[in-house]
């Protein structure tokens, strides 16, 4: 049944704030970025030179940028898959009716309360190669030298872990909400048929949870592409060398430290296109496998 607004203007008025916000904070800057990406701009912005596609050509012929793409890809895959897998396991465990679990469940969500920069600070201190408790314990217990300042592998792994941990709470909240919404009859029926926990999880819980998983898949991808800037900025600064130079950090460096606005705009356009394409692909392929009740 359709309801009608008594007033023709009213719907537009209600929509207006959102439209204005989108225009001011999204459409307008994007258009300006697109325009700037064809220019070479002086630091003060007062002189600009039209250079056509030069910024884009340079990006894709520059080993550093290609490396940045590769680093971002590895980071993103880590954050999305490790993050979703671990938080799903923890959510399933936390969903059991055990004494005191409501308390633990509340604790699990805490990391989400932190901004990426704070998460970076916490992890940076904890894993500081000289006086970090985490790195010292790791060395004492396993003999592994974990130095994110001087080892490229450690640095990327370190960032991946910190980023995953930060998103952990968010993922668990959604997974738990999803688990709470599952129809218990199905699981009970399966139990009566003699299905074990493992089979119940893969045959019933996992498929029924797929809308949540898919939503988190998209959110985590966006997070790993855009929001981890603060983490990198506080801890590794893209180093050692170019080992943790995520695309968004590279953009910041070129645009805000190097003041090369045109070059940075080109990167923002690439980032925008990349994420748009990824999200479309996810909806196209993963989305079709999602089972909505």
């Amino acid at each position: 049944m359709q309801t009608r607004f008594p007033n023709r203007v009213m719907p537009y008025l209600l929509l207006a704030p959102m439209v204005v916000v989108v225009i001011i904070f999204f459409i307008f800057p994007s258009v300006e970025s697109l325009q700037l990406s064809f220019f070479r701009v002086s630091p003060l912005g007062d002189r600009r030179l039209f250079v056509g596609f030069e910024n884009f050509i340079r990006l894709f012929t520059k080993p550093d940028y290609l490396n940045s793409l590769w680093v971002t890809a590895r980071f993103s895959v880590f954050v999305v898959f490790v993050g979703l897998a671990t938080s799903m396991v923890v959510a399933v465990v936390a969903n059991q009716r055990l004494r005191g679990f409501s308390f633990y469940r509340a604790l699990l969500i805490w990391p989400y309360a932190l901004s990426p920069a704070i998460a970076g600070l916490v992890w940076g201190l904890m894993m500081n190669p000289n006086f970090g408790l985490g790195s010292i314990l790791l060395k004492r217990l396993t003999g592994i030298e974990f130095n994110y300042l001087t080892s490229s592998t450690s640095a990327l792994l370190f960032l991946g872990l910190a980023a995953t941990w930060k998103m952990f709470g968010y993922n668990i909240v959604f997974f738990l909400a999803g688990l709470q919404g599952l129809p218990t009859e199905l699981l009970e029926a399966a139990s009566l048929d003699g299905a074990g926990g493992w089979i119940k999880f893969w045959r019933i819980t996992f498929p029924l949870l797929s809308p949540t998983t898919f939503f988190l898949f998209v959110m985590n991808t966006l997070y790993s592409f855009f929001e981890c800037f603060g983490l990198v900025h506080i801890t590794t600064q893209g180093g050692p060398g170019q080992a943790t130079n995520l695309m968004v950090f590279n953009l910041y460096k070129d645009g805000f430290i190097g003041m090369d606005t045109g070059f940075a705009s080109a990167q923002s356009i690439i980032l925008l296109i990349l994420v748009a394409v990824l999200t479309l692909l996810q909806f196209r392929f993963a989305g079709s496998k999602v089972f909505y009740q």
Partner: protein
Amino acid sequence: MKNRRWLIVISYLVMFAMILGACAPKAEPTATDAPPAPEATDVPDAPTDVPAPTAEPVAAEPEPAEITFWHAMSGSRGDVINAIAERFMEANPHIKLTAEYSGSYAETLTKALAATRSGTPPTIVQVYEVGTESMLDSGAIVPVYTLNKGEVDWADVVQPILKYYSKDGELYCMPFNSSTAMVYYNIDMLEAAGIDVGTPPTTWAEIEEYSLKVIEAGLAPGGFSMGWPAWILEQTYAMHDQLFADSDNGRGGLATEVYLNSDFGVKVLTEWQRMADEKVLVYGGREYSANDPFLAAQFPFLIQSTSSLGGILGKATFKVGTTFLPRLDGDYPKGNSVVGGGCLWLMDGTTPAQQAAAWEFFKFINTPAETIAWHKETGYFPATNTAYEQLKAEGWFEEEPNHATAFNQILGGADTPASVGVLLGNFVQIRDIVGAAIEDVVVNGVDPKTALDKATADSNQVLSDYASLLK
């Protein structure tokens, strides 16, 4: 029932999370337009309703003005700046000076240029030495020499500092926090290793030799580390009188190419790589992060800016010695260490009253009393000869010999084009390129020549882009 309660708990937590997230400190300080009331409170950023002093007309007083001063001095140095600002306003009640911490050096420069672009520049901005060429070419500044009507004798400014910030013999910004790099060492650790600390190391080879002794004695896992590695590389060039870029390091005109992959550059990085492989060189990050492990006795030597002296002396639990930057073995000419740190620039687009007030401030910080206080509290150079002589007369340097090291180093060097300091367009980006190249060499094991060839090509590209925009 239980489920519902659970969901309520979650939603509360999420709200809590969002609130915390919103409260999380941001890198960007909030720009307060409200000027602080100097006598009402000692909290520098407290907004106030007190009207501007125009309400109390004093016939003899000069025109009142409100000026802003953006700086990059965090922590204890920021407190020192706030104290200077208060003393200044006490001495000049008609001026309201708002000193604001505006982030790191790079962020401060970017913000100042962005603010200028949008027509609301700060009156004074502190820019690090790397930003000098960009400021000179920006067309957004008022050179300080144009303000000086004979009140300040520039010849009193310590020569290497004066030269660094001058172009064609004219001074463009007000020297404030000048520093250079030097070697800090842990006297206790060296003595324990049986090394005579009366003769501190003068060459890289000696640093390596002493480091190995310390490591072999099991006193520390490493030998030395550096703050600002890309800057230390520039210092090493200057110490050996090697040009870093063409056009006399950009002093005789815009530089168009850097000499990073010269034999000298490759030699230095090859040495560094070898020492990193021996675990003598401990890589310690790009700015000040190497200070902490030095203080934690992880290695006996630290090559760092003199501006860390105050902090290191205050925190060290061992006796600290300082000495000149090391030289390479071989027949290299004598050069000098280069001035670093920051300089105060007066921005264009400010009112004449503001510019006059800024000039008052510049004269204020240039007084011997302020220069001496700043030096003692931070470790930065006393920027004028008068202040230096006064410090000497009161016996400060005998009392605190570590405070004399860098000064003796910079005054004892040769005065050649290669040792004045490099001026490069968009030097900030080139610093970053060099920083990454050094990390590639000492951490990732990339061949020094390969890394430097790439860094040279990238830097030259930056320079040609920069030049193309000036035409």
